[in-house]
């Protein structure tokens, strides 16, 4: 099957910065494609170019067979975008917001009513159709935006931080809706998020750093690349402990991060037993775990996603 999105040699240059450098990747039909990267990595610039909101300096984007620079309207009809910030008209009712969207996207008149009911049902907002959006909670607004993004049968749904600013329970709900969509409508999703645990639902993840794609793979493969286990420990005297660890551990990578020492290793058992014997300073905290996406992120960008926030 042809990839639904093809990005080839994409570049964006501003006066003094080269924001996006020769980026190329494909997104397959029906997959959830996670697009991660620290702030300032060129993520938004890339997405804006894919969504026809920004003209690239060079390179091409093809969505659903249409060239994003030439057949803008066709591309816009093929995609649905759920922005990070609220883009609903709060003075209008949910139903009115949806109807306007149908008209902007030329959904055939006969199909509008039926489609509006359909999408409202998907996000459980049928009861709130006549209510003004300003009376909605944050989660309801988000769901309405997702519903609206679906109205015109897009081939690709762009979700920019779909759960930002929501409480954990609502976040979980939003993901349920998103997964339900994937199952029911087979829509391709292009997802950005700062919550790495949420990025786990992606079929593939691309990590962008300094304007380039650092890696693209499935979450499982990415974690495998980081490899082995991660030992986190803190001691009474971290400097002393780190110095001693450097001396006797050979096959591991040792990093320090706010009061904890991180050891990345393929053989955690022997290190732990050695550590107990060799270390002269008392250990106050010890933890062994499998790598998470956060470790993947860290190893590809050199930054923690939380740190990259600030």
């Amino acid at each position: 099957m042809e990839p639904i999105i093809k990005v080839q040699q994409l570049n964006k240059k501003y006066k003094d910065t080269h924001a996006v450098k020769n980026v190329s990747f494909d997104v397959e039909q029906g997959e959830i494609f996670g697009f991660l990267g620290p702030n300032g990595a060129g993520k938004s610039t890339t997405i804006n170019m894919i969504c026809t909101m920004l003209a690239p300096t060079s390179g091409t984007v093809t969505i659903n067979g249409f060239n994003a620079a030439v057949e803008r309207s066709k591309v816009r009809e093929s995609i649905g975008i759920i922005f990070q910030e609220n883009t609903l008209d709060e003075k209008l009712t949910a139903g009115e917001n949806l109807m306007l969207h149908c008209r902007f996207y030329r959904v055939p008149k006969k199909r509008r009513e039926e489609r509006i009911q359909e999408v409202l049902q998907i996000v459980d907002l049928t009861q709130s159709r006549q209510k003004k959006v300003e009376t909605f909670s944050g989660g309801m607004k988000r769901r309405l935006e997702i519903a609206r993004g679906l109205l015109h049968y897009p081939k690709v749904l762009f979700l920019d931080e779909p759960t930002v600013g929501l409480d954990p329970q609502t976040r979980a709900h939003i993901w349920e809706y998103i997964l339900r969509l994937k199952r029911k409508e087979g829509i391709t999703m292009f997802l950005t998020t700062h919550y790495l645990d949420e990025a786990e639902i992606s079929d593939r993840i691309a990590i962008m750093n300094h304007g380039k794609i650092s890696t693209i793979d499935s979450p499982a493969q990415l974690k495998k690349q980081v490899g082995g286990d991660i030992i986190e420990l803190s001691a009474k005297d971290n400097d002393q402990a780190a110095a001693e660890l450097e001396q006797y551990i050979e096959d591991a990578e040792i990093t320090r991060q706010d009061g904890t020492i991180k050891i990345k290793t393929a053989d955690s058992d022997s290190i732990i037993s050695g550590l107990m014997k060799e270390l002269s300073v008392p250990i106050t905290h010890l933890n062994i775990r499998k790598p998470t996406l956060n470790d993947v992120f860290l190893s590809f960008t050199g930054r923690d996603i939380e740190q990259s926030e600030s």
Partner: protein
Amino acid sequence: MEGILAIWQRDVIKFLRDRARLFGSFSMPILFLLIFGGGLSGTMEGLISETVPEESDFQYIQFVFPGIVAMTLLMTSVFSSLSIIEDRDFGYMKEILVSPVLRVSIAVGKMLGASTVACIQGIMMFLLIPFLGISYPLASMIQVIPFMFLLACALSSVGLLIASFLKSTQGFQLIVQLLVMPMVFLSGALFPVNNMPGWMDVVVKINPVTYGVDIMKKVMIDTGSLSPVIREAMGLNLTLFGRSITVFEEVLFMLTFTIILVLLATLSFRRSNA
């Protein structure tokens, strides 16, 4: 087309729901009615009856009222275009901009929305007529509405163009203040602009309000039966390049003016978001 209609309807619906806006924008025109209608009419009527004693039933307010309606159109049109900046601030503009709606349709839809809102306000001003002790033939009041709409279109496109390249509401208000008052005063809406100095006359002649007000007076007041003295005194002999201008030419001017400004606003939209 559907896009234009949707954008237009949205602005009109929102206006009709907003009661505060509906009544708030009347304060200024009513103030002007009081000052020019009440305050100035004694002097004007006195002057006229001294020079032409046979015109003793001359009512100044009859001539000023169309001008005040035009002023209402001007203020509402320009300020309604502010909704573009609001849409940008509240994020809704993004929803419109990523949709397949053509940029020119966005500009036209917004322009028509503001014009309709202004026209509704202008027509509501008619409700004041009985209280002013004047009257106009009903037929001419209906006839004047399309011309009012055309004037509103020309004025909304001014607001649209300004809003399309300004980022903030404050900046918009400043520019509008600098623009709206001169456009009112240099249009013949409130007093005749027959004998202006050269440069001011140029401003009068490129000001769409001038032609809008002139048509409105021609339609609402039976100008044919007026004595030449009053026609001259009330500035009803508008000339362009030394000859009287026709209604057709005035319509053509406002149409061209609107089209040019809407196209410029479209270009400005394109530039700002690709």
